[in-house]
């Protein structure tokens, strides 16, 4: 996942004296990789690559948390500042303004709130600047707030026109095959089935959940009342739908990586705050919050000795604590056993003790570890390996003036003369089959040099793939050569010399075959 993080936005949550350059360097060494820093709209913007398992850091706040854990290791003070929210609505399981039925297997947490009488206008300049810095299109305050919260927290947020949802009622369910929906961007989709969708009181689909909202329920210039939606979904459904429809929205890319349901609280409250501040909308008193299986803290334990074994060095207990705590882990020691409580936002990527060790050592800094070759026994070599022989063949043929080629092993259908393996998803019809012979490839290679008037000789050592029933093909390593503009006797002489060099006793027979002119083909037969 590639992120753009504006320095000013980051500093809203990260109190530090570190320079932009220091932040970029330290993050790259111990955390997400900063690919470059550019100047956009008057601020430094970091281009950051976050690995797919770390969706928790795919946001401004997530990067601030990483930086606050990493910078102190370099002797630079850094503190993570909390996100302040001023409105504090109650979360309840059902509300008067909205009737819902949610399948908990599809939607792990469903929250929504109604905001009335807001004013659509353009967003304030600070928000416009930041959205531009992260490469987002600026539309109006409603759309911009949704996007802003997503970039800030890594939690997608969606808005609906409340009055377009018939009966103020929704059902969140799995789609049936063939159901249709037009998304916000005007694209028509026919669903494969098993997608997470929402239908309103009239039975029409209003949301392709986690991917994009429906056009029929979208906020427009006439919208008076807005429903603010913040959810977490089953990532497998989201991914399947998004891949099937080839509709890879930012929301889908986040949702398919399992988002932290605990983050939903902050997401909706941050949304409400911004709505009140920027649209003058009036929120209801209660947030609808359907969260049947709340997060239970995950605990892992491991021995100090095990940590030392994987790292190859000793790290004192209190240092281990110091590295884990800023990341949100709680640590406690019972003699030499470490018990770690995993924060909700890391519940998905931290599964085994090795994951904790990775956290310790990356903050410690891989670059700070020593470098030593392993000791211990050396494995035995493989006696009958053919590598040496292949290399000998290549060198002999090079000595005879041959030029080695590597030709593609994926070939077109008309190069295949026997049973061959076919690809399900070839790049094109010219590379649809796995070759069973090197001959057509070499003929083609020779023709590529048809402008060459002098004698030349190409050869290749490569696998051919001979299909076997119910099993992997026989990968047969094969030597083949082709001679162009060359006298037959010279060619034959090279083959004979090669065989003699290899101490092969052979006889020569004349045999006709396809692809060769009648009575102009010989076969060397090993007689040993």
């Amino acid at each position, binding site marked *: 996942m590639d992120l753009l993080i504006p320095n000013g936005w980051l500093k809203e949550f990260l109190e530090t004296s570190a320079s932009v350059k220091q932040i970029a*360097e330290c993050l790259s060494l*111990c955390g*997400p*990789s900063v690919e470059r820093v550019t100047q956009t709209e008057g601020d430094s913007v970091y281009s950051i690559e976050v690995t*797919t398992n*770390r969706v928790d850091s795919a946001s401004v706040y997530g990067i601030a948390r990483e930086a606050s854990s990493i910078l102190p290791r370099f002797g630079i003070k850094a503190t993570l500042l909390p996100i302040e929210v001023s409105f504090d609505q109650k979360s309840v399981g059902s509300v008067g303004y909205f009737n819902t039925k949610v399948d908990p297997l599809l939607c792990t947490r469903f929250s929504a709130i109604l905001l009335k009488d807001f004013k659509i206008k353009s967003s304030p300049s600070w928000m416009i600047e930041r959205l531009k810095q992260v490469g987002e299109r600026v539309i109006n305050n409603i759309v911009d707030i949704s996007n802003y919260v997503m970039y800030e927290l890594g939690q997608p947020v969606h808005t609906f026109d409340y009055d377009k949802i018939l009966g103020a009622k929704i059902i969140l369910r799995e789609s049936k095959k063939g159901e249709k929906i037009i998304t916000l961007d005007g694209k028509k989709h026919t669903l494969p089935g098993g997608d997470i969708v929402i239908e309103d009181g009239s039975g029409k689909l209003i949301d392709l959940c986690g991917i994009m909202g429906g056009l029929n329920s979208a906020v427009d210039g006439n919208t008076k009342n807005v429903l603010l939606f913040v959810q977490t979904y089953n990532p497998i459904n989201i*991914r399947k739908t998004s891949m099937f429809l080839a509709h890879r929205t930012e929301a889908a890319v986040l949702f*398919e*990586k399992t988002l932290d349901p605990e983050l939903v609280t902050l997401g909706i409250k941050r949304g409400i705050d911004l709505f009140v501040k920027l649209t003058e909308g009036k929120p209801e008193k209660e947030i609808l919050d359907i969260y049947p299986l709340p997060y239970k803290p995950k605990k892992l334990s491991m021995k100090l000795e095990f940590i030392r*074994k*994987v*790292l*190859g060095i000793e790290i004192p207990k209190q240092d281990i604590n110091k590295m884990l705590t800023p990341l949100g882990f709680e640590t406690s020691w019972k003699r030499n056993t470490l018990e770690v409580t995993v924060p909700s936002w890391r519940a998905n990527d931290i599964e085994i003790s*090795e994951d904790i060790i*990775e956290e310790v*050592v*990356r903050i410690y800094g*891989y*670059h700070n*570890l*020593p*470098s*030593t*070759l*392993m000791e*211990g*026994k*050396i*494995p035995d070599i*493989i006696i009958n390996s053919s590598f040496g022989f292949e290399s000998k063949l*290549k*060198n002999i043929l090079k*000595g*005879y*003036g041959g*030029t*080695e*080629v*590597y*030709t593609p092993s994926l070939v077109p259908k008309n190069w295949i003369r026997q049973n061959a*393996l076919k*690809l*399900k*998803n070839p*790049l094109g019809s010219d*590379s649809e089959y*796995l070759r069973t012979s090197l001959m057509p490839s070499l003929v*083609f*290679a*020779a023709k*590529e*040099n048809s402008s060459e008037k002098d*004698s*030349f*000789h190409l050869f290749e050592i490569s*696998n051919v*793939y001979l299909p076997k029933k*119910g099993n*992997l093909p026989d*990968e047969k390593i094969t030597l083949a050569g082709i001679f162009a503009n060359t006298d037959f006797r010279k060619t034959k002489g090279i083959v004979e010399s090669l065989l003699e060099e290899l101490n092969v006793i052979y006889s020569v027979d004349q045999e006709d075959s396809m692809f060769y002119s009648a009575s102009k083909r010989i076969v060397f037969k090993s007689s040993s």
Partner: protein
Amino acid sequence: MKEDIINTKNEALAQIMTVKSLGELEELRIAYVGRSGKLSRLIKKIVDLPLEKRKETGFLINEVKNTISKILAEQKNSLQNSIREWFDPTIPGLKPIRGHLHLVTYAIQEISSVFEKIGFVRVRYPEVEWDWFAFESLNMSQGHPARDEWETFFVDTPTHPKYGQMVLTPHTSSGQVREMMRVKIPPIRMINIAKSYRRQSDVSHIPMFHQFEGLVVDKNISIVHLKGTLDYFARNFFGPKRKTRLRPSHFQFTEPSFEVDISCGVCGGVGCKLCKAGWVELGGAGMVHPVVLKNGGMDPKKYTGFAFGWGVERTFMMKSGLDIPDIRLLYSSDLRFLTQS
């Protein structure tokens, strides 16, 4: 007497100048300046002269003898030259046709020889492989988003009941579990170099390329040993001053996972236009995930290991400083390109 001497000289010179062969020349030498040649005979006559003329005549005869000898020598040289065969040793040699090995062959040879020196065993595993070895056993189950990074070719054959679909192996990592199954009891130090296939084709990507995969499994293998091995490779493949650096990364089949950087060969690690603050990305590596060890029949409580897998072509281009504008050129058969190696 004086006249005789002058006449002999003139006669000799005339004959010498018109001689045609070395044999004739030798005859003339004997006839004039030989032990009993004409001049010797004239010398013997000196005693017949009056005393006051003997000295003067002696000088004259000597002078004539010297002149004749000199001309004889000159004529001998010139005769020898004229009978020498014409020969020009500066002519260009006729070379046998020079053969050429492919760049990828050189790269594979160099890479494997560096690792073989520290006890790695070179192996080769199937290029057409079951999904289980290519993904599932490497901790990437069906539908896992991490699979997106490997644009995989699928073979149109029935699915194996245990191992799943048949694929073209998208990386040499498929050999990790196979090597564990082959060796059964560590130590394992594997270097697996083979063709890999991905569904991609542009100036920097090719559907068929080569990877080399290192795998070490034994008791007490730690990150420190991975660093040691990578530094050894960097020094012995790229040059004595090069070193590597690990940064955090993520792969499903290693834990922890790293991105490996090598110090920039152009600026020496100070930072320049071609690198990132003195470092260039080399590829991925990591400590073998316990699930992968288990799938290979290894007890993760007893054994640990590390692995790395990089592109042969890219690594070799980084070493040689070759800048091939279109990587697909490597797999064309154009002699103008192939004969440059």
